[in-house]
């Protein structure tokens, strides 16, 4: 017996000829979205840094708020989507939502870290210190740690469905934990100090200032959407590649079994 029964051999993913068609995670939709974002960024920057007046109390450092608030909104939306996605994974066993939760958690992590840095850059000229044990700052720092924990769970090497279920259980708790931490920290601080510090956050808002702020928030959400789509596609491809490697491993193993059998036959 000389003919080795060959198992169905799909082309190995690494050895495959360079994929045809356009390369990357972009598409028509994302290019339009990206264009909208770029125009939005230009206008928002002009409104925030040039056309709007300095604040009576804060001076020019009010211009930090125009970027701070939109970034915070993105971070919160990211957490919300992560928790929503985790619920859908547990409920419907959805791969789509698993990838969405992962992509949005990573963006939320980046924007939460940015929130802290921007917040400190604002606190220093306003309050004279980089950090105060204010409820918002403290609970934002805890939010960053919760997100890091979630992403650490995602990075544990495991079979796809195992990983998605495990991450989903941690992810479902993300938003409730953020809320409980935030409430307890607020309650804790409010017992100790009055809210004079917080009052500086609510200045009398000039019309142009309000417009700069309210314009920047949707722009940030467009940027978030653009990032989310690209990150989603990247995560999706990573998952597809893992699945392909698995199919390859299964057919390798079958071929190996067939080969060994053929050797036995020759003996």
């Amino acid at each position: 017996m000389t003919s080795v029964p060959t198992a169905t051999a799909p082309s190995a993913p690494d050895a495959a000829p360079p994929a045809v068609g356009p390369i990357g995670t972009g598409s028509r939709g994302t290019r339009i979205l990206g264009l909208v974002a770029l125009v939005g960024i230009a206008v928002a920057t002009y409104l925030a840094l040039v056309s709007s007046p300095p604040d009576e109390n804060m001076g020019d450092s009010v211009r930090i708020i125009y970027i701070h608030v939109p970034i915070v909104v993105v971070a919160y939306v990211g957490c919300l989507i992560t928790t929503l996605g985790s619920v859908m994974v547990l409920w419907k066993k959805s791969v789509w939502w698993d990838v969405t939760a992962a992509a949005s958690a990573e963006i939320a992590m980046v924007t939460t870290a940015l929130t802290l840095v921007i917040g400190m850059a604002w606190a220093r000229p306003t309050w004279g210190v980089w950090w105060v044990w204010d409820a918002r700052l403290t609970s934002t720092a805890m939010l960053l740690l919760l997100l890091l924990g979630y992403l650490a769970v995602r990075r544990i090497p495991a079979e796809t469905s195992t990983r998605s279920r495990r991450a989903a259980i941690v992810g479902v708790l993300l938003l409730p934990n953020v809320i409980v931490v935030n409430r307890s920290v607020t309650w804790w601080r409010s017992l100790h100090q009055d809210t004079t510090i917080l009052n500086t956050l609510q200045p009398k808002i000039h019309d142009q200032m309000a417009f700069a702020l309210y314009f920047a928030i949707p722009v940030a959400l467009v940027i978030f959407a653009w990032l989310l789509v690209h990150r989603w596609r990247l995560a999706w491809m990573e998952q597809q590649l893992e699945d392909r490697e698995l199919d390859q491993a299964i057919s390798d193993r079958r071929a190996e079994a067939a080969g060994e059998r053929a050797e036995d036959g020759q003996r």
Partner: protein
Amino acid sequence: MNDWGYVALAWGVTAVVLVAYALWVILRGRAMSRRLPPEDRRWM
């Protein structure tokens, strides 16, 4: 450092981090898409 310095710091850090992150995602996406056939990238 006057107020503008802190404004520049906040805006600068945000710009650098977001651009770096976006670049990372795009470049990794390009590298990854070379290893997959188009049927796995249906958004093309």
